[in-house]
């Protein structure tokens, strides 16, 4: 016990305080508004790293399990949030190896994005507002990964959604940004309904257990597993409800439509929220609830199927997009699909591995694209770029590293994690996941090097006066790029070795041990010169083919490797598969489909319901009111306002009473 865990609440307090202070007085700080938020996140990074080292080196105390599979980490109870009889919600933090892995990604990329934003947002009038929102996001995201209670996770889940909404719509005067923000928020609501129902189902299920209802994550999962088939709500349903939430936040088909539009936000936001952290929340959620999913093979297959389908769908769209950020957005979708496919086949560690490596190289690629956009004066269309490699060498070099990493070329980070996903899918018998995954790897390499070719190689296609003014971004932006390039190269080597028995596997095995035991996954020894070697060769080969194809079509210019771009060949090939080309260009018409389903058909339905509400429901109520008024109007004539009419009424009433009394008394 070193006492560092006492600092853990600061992980939440510092960003929240940074948000509050910046939101209150930020406007007066003008161009100094970044200091408080950046320093807060810097301190958070230091504390987080201290805690992560303690947890991952197993210096931290054991919080559950025993022996080889003991989970080392920190647990602390902060306060009781809702003490309502049986319904008690405690707020606590838990830092186990899974959270530690997330903390590395969230705090490191968070800090670098904060620093990068100092340069990127420097001319924006909403400078202080931007940093306030960023800190709010960091608070929410850290709460999401640290919380030990479903309800608190849900609150954090909504908070990241809120900060995402605020940051997508940061340029709220721009109509498209406002619409994109609303789209993201509304599409996320669809998934969140599932998540909320899932939490309620957990509460009902644990209510049947002996310890009573609980919303604590670990306790509730254990209680539900012990009950097994006796659960009031089948675990299959609970798992799928939680997955619905994950689908919304991690933008999986069919809820993927919001993420590409979210690129309307400033580029640092795209890097931090919509590539490296928030969109991983769904992966984290499924990984956190891993024993729950493991008990239901059907749920696992659905997760894998949706994941791999999203992967190929998004990759196919990324092939033809011309907006540099949109290509990266679809690439993010595709990689998230990989992660879900890995979770679905039971390769939990591989999924988290890919989450980490992807966080770094995709964060790098987004920040790099921001630097490119800055250089060419807010132009995002790659058709108006080209040849930028000569003008902005640091951005070019770092983005090249990112592209190689995501394409899966060894020994960069992406190779290790992607290969682990594909290899495990194959070894666990999910050949279809492996096959599609391999094809997606080819597409990934292709569209990334298409992006590189269109942006950095060949000749500039934009106006000459812009070309003359292109310059490298300031150091405050390039240094984060370089710092992100380092883990993009080394992370795989650092934690992915030795193959088949990696460091990361040792870290995460205690967390996923339970699920793996339930699934009874085959533990074949790693054979570098057998099946595993073949699988590695296969994935490297398709990556290389993808890269080579992209070079042939869109050119290349790395040192001695030179090839001109051939737009006529691109056109020719596009004409050969006109349907696929148009489908990809139009994003498989999903926006149109949603427009048809929800705006046209749904709108008609809503209109019909409105009519029913107006005419039938309101009609009934209004008719009752109208009849009451009419009756009152009729009865009003009784009130003549003449004293003697009333007196007559009294007298007649008296007579009636006396007569009826006399009649009754005489016994008739």
């Amino acid at each position, binding site marked *: 016990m070193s006492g560092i865990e006492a600092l853990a609440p600061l992980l939440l307090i510092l960003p929240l305080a940074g948000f509050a202070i910046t939101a209150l007085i930020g406007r007066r700080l003008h161009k100094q508004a970044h200091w408080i938020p950046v320093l807060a996140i810097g301190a958070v990074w230091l504390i987080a790293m201290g805690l992560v080292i303690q947890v991952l080196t197993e210096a931290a105390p054991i919080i559950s399990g025993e022996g080889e599979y003991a989970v080392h980490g920190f647990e602390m109870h902060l306060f009781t949030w809702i003490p309502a009889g049986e319904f008690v919600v405690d707020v606590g933090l838990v830092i186990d190896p899974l959270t530690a892995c997330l903390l590395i990604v969230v705090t490191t990329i968070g800090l670098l994005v904060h620093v990068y934003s100092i340069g990127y947002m420097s001319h924006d009038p909403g400078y202080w507002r931007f940093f306030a929102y960023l800190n709010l996001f960091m608070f929410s995201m850290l709460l999401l990964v640290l919380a030990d209670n479903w309800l608190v996770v849900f609150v954090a889940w909504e908070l990241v959604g809120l900060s995402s909404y605020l940051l997508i719509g940061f340029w709220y005067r721009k109509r498209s940004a406002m619409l994109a923000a609303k789209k993201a928020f509304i599409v996320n609501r669809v998934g969140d309904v599932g998540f909320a129902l899932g939490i309620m189902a957990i509460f009902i299920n644990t209510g049947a257990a002996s310890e009573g209802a609980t919303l604590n994550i670990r306790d509730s999962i254990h209680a539900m597993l012990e009950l097994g088939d006796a659960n009031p709500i089948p675990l299959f349903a609970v798992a799928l409800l939680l997955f619905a939430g994950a689908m919304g936040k991690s933008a999986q088909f069919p809820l993927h439509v919001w993420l590409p539009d979210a690129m309307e936000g400033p580029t640092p936001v795209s890097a931090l929220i919509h590539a490296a952290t928030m969109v991983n929340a769904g992966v984290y959620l499924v990984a956190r609830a891993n024993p729950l999913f493991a008990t239901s093979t059907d749920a696992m297959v659905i997760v894998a199927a949706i994941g791999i389908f999203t992967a190929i769908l998004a990759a196919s769209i990324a092939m033809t997009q011309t907006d540099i950020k949109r290509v990266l957005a679809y690439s993010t979708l595709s990689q998230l699909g990989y992660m879900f496919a890995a979770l679905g086949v039971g390769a939990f560690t591989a999924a988290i591995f890919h989450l980490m490596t992807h966080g770094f190289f995709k964060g790098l690629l987004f920040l790099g694209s921001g630097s490119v956009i800055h250089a060419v004066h807010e132009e995002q269309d790659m058709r108006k770029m080209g040849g930028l490699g000569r003008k902005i060498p640091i951005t070019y070099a770092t983005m090249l590293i990112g592209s190689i990493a995501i394409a899966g070329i060894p020994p960069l980070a992406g190779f290790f994690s992607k290969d682990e996903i594909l290899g495990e899918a194959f070894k666990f018998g999910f050949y279809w996941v492996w096959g599609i995954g391999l094809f997606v790897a080819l597409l990934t390499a292709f569209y990334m090097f298409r992006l590189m070719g269109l942006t950095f190689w060949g000749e500039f296609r934009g106006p000459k006066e812009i070309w003359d003014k292109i310059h490298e971004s300031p150091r405050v932006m390039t240094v984060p790029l370089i710092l992100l390039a380092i883990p993009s190269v080394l992370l795989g080597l650092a934690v992915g070795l030795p193959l088949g028995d990696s460091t990361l596997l040792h870290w995460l095995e205690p967390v996923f041990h339970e699920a793996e035991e339930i699934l009874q996954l085959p533990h074949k020894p790693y054979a570098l010169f057998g099946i595993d070697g073949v699988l590695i060769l296969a994935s490297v080969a398709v990556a290389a083919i993808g890269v080579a194809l992209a070079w042939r079509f869109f050119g290349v210019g790395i040192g001695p490797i030179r090839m001109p771009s051939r737009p006529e060949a691109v056109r020719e090939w596009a004409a050969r598969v006109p349907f696929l080309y148009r489908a990809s260009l139009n994003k498989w018409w999903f926006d149109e489909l949603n427009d048809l389903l929800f705006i046209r058909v749904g709108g008609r339905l809503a209109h019909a319901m409105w009519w029913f509400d107006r005419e039938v429901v309101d009609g009934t109520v209004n008719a009752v009111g109208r009849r009451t008024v009419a009756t009152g109007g009729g009865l009003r004539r009784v*009130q*003549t*306002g*003449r*004293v*003697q009419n009333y*007196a*007559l009424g009294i*007298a007649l009433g008296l007579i009636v009473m006396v007569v009826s009394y006399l009649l009754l008394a005489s016994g008739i």
Partner: protein
Amino acid sequence: MSNSLDTYLILSGMLFAIGSFGFLARRNAISMLMSIELMLNAVNLSIVAFAAFGAFGTTQQGVGVGSVIALMVMAVAAAEATVGLAIVIAIYRNKRTPLVDEYDAMRQ
């Protein structure tokens, strides 16, 4: 006519009927107030008669109860007449008429 309860009650009933008729038939507010007094006195008469013929008990106390109630009614009647006259005078100042069927301010 012997000295019986019926005699008093018949007289009381006649007084009450006259009062009621006056209240319902007369249009003059003052006459109506006077009719009210007549009805109250009819009631008073029957109460006192009941007490005298032992309806509240034959003891001295029982006989006294009737007198007390009658006195109470008189006091209330006096108060009522005062308030009633005050209201009539107030309305008269506005309307310049004592006839109640002209008093239609409450009528919508």
